[in-house]
């Protein structure tokens, strides 16, 4: 298995960062969101890569399903959940200037 640019979750992190930076909130809370968001995406991406490696050894059809559908859905869900949690706390933790 080869992990290339685009496979390391950086594009999802960049997208999440753009949403966090664009949303009205205090800078300290934005920084917390940038760090926490990156950690959440990268941890899940690491789990994705490990699971795909073992699935690839076990069954190619299962690997393809997990690779093309399941994990993409989970990564999207992860980004939405992170942004939802962060933005819901943006009002109480840091008000817009």
């Amino acid at each position: 298995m080869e992990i290339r640019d685009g496979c390391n979750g950086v594009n999802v992190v960049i997208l999440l960062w753009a949403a966090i930076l664009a949303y009205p909130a205090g800078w300290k809370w934005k920084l917390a969101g940038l760090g926490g968001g990156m950690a959440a995406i990268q941890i899940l991406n690491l789990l994705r890569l490990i699971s795909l490696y073992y699935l690839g050894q076990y069954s190619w059809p299962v690997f393809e399903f997990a690779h093309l559908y399941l994990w993409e859905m989970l990564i999207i869900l992860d980004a939405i959940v992170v942004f939802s949690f962060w933005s819901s706390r943006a009002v109480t933790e840091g008000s817009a200037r």
Partner: protein
Amino acid sequence: MRSLPLICAAAFLTSSGWAATYTFTTPDYTSTTDFTNCTTGPCMNYTTSMNTSGSFTVATPLGPNLTNSNIASLVTSYSFSDGINTYSNTNPNSRLFEFLVSTDASGNISNTLLALQDWQSGTSPHSANDRIAFLVIDMGSSATNNSYCSHVEPAPSSGVADSCSFLNSDTASSDAFVMTGTWMFAVPTPTLGEWETIFLGGLLVTFALLRLRRRERGRTAA
């Protein structure tokens, strides 16, 4: 939300295609023929501890069930070695003469006819009797060093100019052969595909707008 374009730009900038790389390798050569009289050109002998190896890259993975499909125009880069010569798209003396590929139902390479050339004397445009090495990869590989070219023209299959369409060996030539080789495909595992990334960008924008609207309503009600 004023910075909406920021998210949209991030969505498009982070979307990109994923190239596919196919790698080939053979066991050590099983048969070699040495040059006997080095009259001209870079005479070198192959040994049975040498082999053929290399790879090529295409913009998107090859489709399934291809039969002798000409993919020369799809190859974005290649690099192969026969143990003596390196044939590469970055080598100005290399020529991709022919590239036919067959694949199975999963898109894995089942057979190829890959013919590569490397001019070893003269300058472009080359002429008859210039020395040339060539490598043929099918089930295994066949490599020849320091043969001479009888006819120079654009390759009929790939269209690559300044190729040799008829080669001959002489006493200054050497060759090597092995019957088997293996193709491997490097599977890209992108985190999100292009459209999925754009979809996520849209979801984030929609979510943010809804939450801001709710916040405004809450302030208005207060």
